């Protein structure tokens, strides 16, 4: 049996002058993928309604954080970390561009910047340019990295990811070369991540500490890291003090605890869907991640193992895991495919006709290894488009839904309440429920966004109410009435076209429900709005 005879260096690494071109290629592919996805819709992909309203509130209050959020008219405290809202609101004010257009394109632009920042981190954090380029490519195309970043909610998530990765990058630099000038970027980016989104902020904090402890532990570096963390605390303190003054820290604590994912750290290993990578077809990258853990073990790269282990234990969620996962997958690809396969040597053979020894070309394994990586990339990119078919991720509101919401904002009393029923479960991407309050200015009794600020019991109750109302799609009107009792305000039921069960027909036949939209005969692809008469 022939064993591996690796070359001294990987073929791509050997041609280091090509690295900028490889990086450019990765960026071009990433931009094309993201722009292609965004162009498929005329509206921000997926979620973003709550963030949209938060920006509007901030602008309306002349960039002074309002006391409460107007989202869903619930008067919940305005405590969500506001950094991204300031950036997007400021951008909109300066450019005077449409806010929905900014919600479409800003996430794309920032997620591309995130790729470049990631490359800067990877080129120092990994062994050599080949691994760095591979990791960057994985980060740029893996669904768990792409989908959350370029949806409407990406205004927050993409901003947070850039800040977090930059914080870890500078933290790593500080550990390698302890210089005081690095304190500021570490602190600023860490604070920015914290002030943008909890998950990524927590990821950045944990990662800076883990990377430091595993890598370098000089006294000077320790002093500087502590200084950077203290400075970050100072930078965040203004927002924390502001929140504490007006609301106490309870809503923030509620949001933190309600968003904690209590799933077992091993869940990503024993699920087909909720893996590290969210690949909808064959999870080849996820499987490479598993092999990559062992490759890291035999090559004594404990940092990556400890890093991902700690992140799995702490409740940072799956999205930030994309950073160490991309590293580990890149290590596996480099080790097994780029180095492993390309290092095979085709044995020479003797030509039976002439008796001469024919030396086989050794370029062939290199070609195959490169093609193997390209095939993986293409397959993963195709998977992102398949994700849309399967999970309805990255779908924007269509013209019919926007038309219905516009009708609501123009034709219903402001104090009216809506029961928005889409038939989707809490785990699915319910962009109608998310955007409805922001685009109509009306209250949805089944809203699930921003309610994590409530106490745990109230939060759970809201999620249960949402699920119960969505389950009414196969029931009759009395199902809704048992969950949402009558009240002295105008009440409407808002059925999206995805509701194809019995409820649609039942409300049409029920005299207690008056079909107010559309005014013409029911269309199959149309949203239906009923007014409850008593």
């Amino acid at each position, binding site marked *: 049996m022939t*064993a591996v005879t690796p070359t001294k260096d990987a073929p791509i690494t050997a041609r280091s002058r090509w690295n900028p071109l490889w990086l450019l290629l990765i960026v071009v592919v990433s931009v094309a993928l993201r722009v292609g996805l965004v162009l498929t819709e005329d509206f921000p992909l997926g979620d973003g309604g709550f963030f949209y309203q938060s920006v509007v509130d901030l602008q309306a209050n002349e960039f002074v954080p309002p006391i409460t959020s107007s989202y869903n008219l619930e008067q919940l405290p305005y405590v969500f970390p506001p950094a991204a809202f300031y950036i997007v609101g400021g951008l909109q004010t300066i450019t005077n561009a449409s806010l929905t257009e900014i919600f479409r394109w800003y996430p794309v632009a920032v997620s591309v910047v995130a790729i470049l920042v990631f490359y800067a981190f990877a080129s120092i954090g990994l062994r050599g340019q080949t691994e760095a380029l591979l990791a960057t490519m994985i980060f740029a195309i893996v669904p768990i990295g792409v989908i959350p970043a370029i949806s409407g909610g990406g205004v927050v998530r993409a901003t947070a990811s850039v800040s977090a990765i930059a914080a870890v990058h500078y933290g790593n630099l500080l550990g390698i070369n302890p210089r005081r000038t690095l304190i500021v970027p570490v602190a600023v980016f860490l604070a920015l991540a914290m002030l943008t989104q909890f998950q990524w902020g927590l990821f950045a904090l944990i990662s800076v500490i883990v990377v430091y402890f595993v890598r370098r532990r000089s006294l000077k570096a320790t002093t500087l890291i502590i200084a950077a963390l203290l400075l970050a605390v100072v930078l965040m303190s203004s927002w924390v003090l502001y929140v504490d003054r007006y609301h106490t820290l309870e809503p923030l604590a509620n949001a933190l605890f309600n968003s904690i994912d209590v799933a077992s750290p091993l869940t990503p290993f024993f699920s087909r869907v909720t893996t590290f990578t969210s690949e909808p*077809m064959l999870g080849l990258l996820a499987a490479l991640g598993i092999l990559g853990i062992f490759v890291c073990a035999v090559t004594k790269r404990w940092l990556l193992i400890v890093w991902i282990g700690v992140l799995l234990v702490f409740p940072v969620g799956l999205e930030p895991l994309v950073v160490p996962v991309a590293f580990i997958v890149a290590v596996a690809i480099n080790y097994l495919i780029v180095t492993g396969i390309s290092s095979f040597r085709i044995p020479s053979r003797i030509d039976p006709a002439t008796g001469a020894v024919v030396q086989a070309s050794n370029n062939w394994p290199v070609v195959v290894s490169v093609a193997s990586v390209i095939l993986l990339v293409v397959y993963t990119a195709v998977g992102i488009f398949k994700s849309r078919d399967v999970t309805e991720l990255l779908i924007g509101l269509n013209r019919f839904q926007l038309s219905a919401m516009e009708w609501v904002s123009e034709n219903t009393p402001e104090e009216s309440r809506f029961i928005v029923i889409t038939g989707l479960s809490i785990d699915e991407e319910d962009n109608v429920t998310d955007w409805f309050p922001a685009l109509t200015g009306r209250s949805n009794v089944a809203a699930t966004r921003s309610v994590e600020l409530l106490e745990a019991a109230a939060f759970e109750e809201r999620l249960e109410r949402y699920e119960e109302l969505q389950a009414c799609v196969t029931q009759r009107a009395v199902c809704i009435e*048992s969950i949402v009792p009558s009240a002295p305000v105008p009440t409407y039921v808002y059925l999206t076209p995805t509701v194809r069960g019995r409820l649609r027909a039942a409300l049409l036949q029920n005299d207690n429900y008056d079909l107010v939209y559309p005014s013409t005969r029911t269309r*199959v*692809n149309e949203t239906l709005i009923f007014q409850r008469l008593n």
Partner: protein
Amino acid sequence: MQADSPQTITNAGSPPADDIQIDLTGFLSSHFVLVIVMTATAGLLRYLVFRGIDFPLQDGAWAYKMAEAVATGNYRIPQTALFDGRAFESFFPPLGVMLAVFIDRQTGGTLFDLFQTLPGQLSIVTVPLVYILSLRLTGAKWLSFTTALVFGFMPVTTNWMVVGSGIVRTPGYIFALLAIHQGYALLVWRNENHLLTTAILAAFAFLSDPESGYFVLYTLILMTLVLGRNRYSVINLVFVLTLLVMLGGIWLVPAMVVYGVEPYLSAAATVFRPSQILSPLLNTATAFTGEPFIPVIALLGYLGFCLLIAKRRFFLPLWFIIIMILHTRSASAFMAIPLAFMAGAALHQLVIPLLLRSSQISYEGGLPLLRFSERAQLRQLNQHFYLLPVWVFGIALAGYIVFGAYRGTQIVRERVIDEVELAAFEFITSDESRIPDDARFLVFTSETDWRADTTATWFPALTGRESVLLVPESAWYNDFGETLTLYNGIDDCTAQPLTCLIALDRGAATARGIAVTPAITQSDLVRLRVLDDPTSLVIVNELLPEVFEYLYISPGVSGALLEYLVQTDGEVYTSIRAEGNARIYQLSSLEITEQDAEEIEQEADAPPPAEAEAPPTVTEAPSGN
């Protein structure tokens, strides 16, 4: 952080004299023992699938009726078997069924029991056969062991063979593996002693399950083109094919005389469907390996695929691709063979050697155990944990694959006819005055994959009534595609039954004489959705009370019955939480109201969104914010 460090190069192809060699020690060097253990473990996995069941898993209804007829006729192949409420032609090759009857008579059990256990028991044989086949193709024992291990624990092969129709599939698969084993010796080794056995085994594969015969056919051709490539191999291949036609013709020619050529051309056409070529790779519901978690086997297969191409060994990669292209109907089950070979190659020639590289150990195959002296040498080299990562890797990976195989195969256990459904079937057959013999049924189930639709498969066999949607059997009648379309479409009918039925009728009026709307009369019966979703039954009935008349509800679910009555009363709502139950409705009339007709027309004529009216402009925050 570190920059690139030069890698230590170990040329394992010609290791230096002082390099440390790995060898096996003790009884583990005996492959026989290991293969036995592996087979037993794979057998346990299959046993855990069919243990304790009292009904054949998933499908096999037609084969069961066929076996009954063969047993009754004392091994005489019947021209027809009573199946779908009528005499169903015996198109299918009889060898698998006859073997089942033979085994049944030898063991003294019942055919019904045999259909529950025999497919699973026979499927165990495929594991050592893959080992033997791999030995022949590679000559490497450890590689063959790994290949068989991967094959044995790949859920897709188990799930395909342990079900009721495995009674014909599994013998076909076994004969196919044997035929390829013999064919390799004939076509590649040029040993003509294997000519007759190759032809006979290929014919047996074909006569058990035509899909397996087809698999052998293109595999032997590919083998000749890629590995043979000489006049001798081509001539032998021609001889094999000639013999195969002659042996298969013993059954096929009389069958064609009786039934005509058309059913066989029709069935053959269903094996290759161009639209499904990439479906194993693009499937989002399940991995084609059947792995329920992260698909490690699929990845190892991919690595092996790339590795073998890099080594210019094209047979296995081509075999894998050819199956995916030419054998779309059961691609996953047959792709498992080359995939297991490629995964084994990846492990032995790529992954494990690379993992060992850091210890400067050259890998020559086998379990990475060392002799005492070698351990001492390594200790001198300060390699205390030289093999620890490999062992950890091996054990963890094996555990992950085995656990995945267990979870991935247990899903089949859910695909059985339970007591509730049997009671419903008995209701249909118990009183002919209530439901006439010639009643036709439209069977709705919650299953979306026709291969796994246990109720639809067994309904005609157990009730003796005609089901208007039988996907597998439609393959013989040249309406497989249309029936499949109808089957897939009918799944949406739970939400909008009336419009859906009519729309289906428009699209598939010719499918096997199924014309849902005009053909359904008051004497026809429509049986609606069994199990899993009792709410949809109520929906159908309540929305269309003028069309469907409630006829039957399973005993023992009085709560659901009560809810039904309460709901039809129209005054009180009760949340339905009843267990799965079976209900039968009689179609009393089919009057389409003006409103229904208008809605149907709108649905049919609705323009796609892109062609509808101009979109409203929603840009900024609406008023009121």
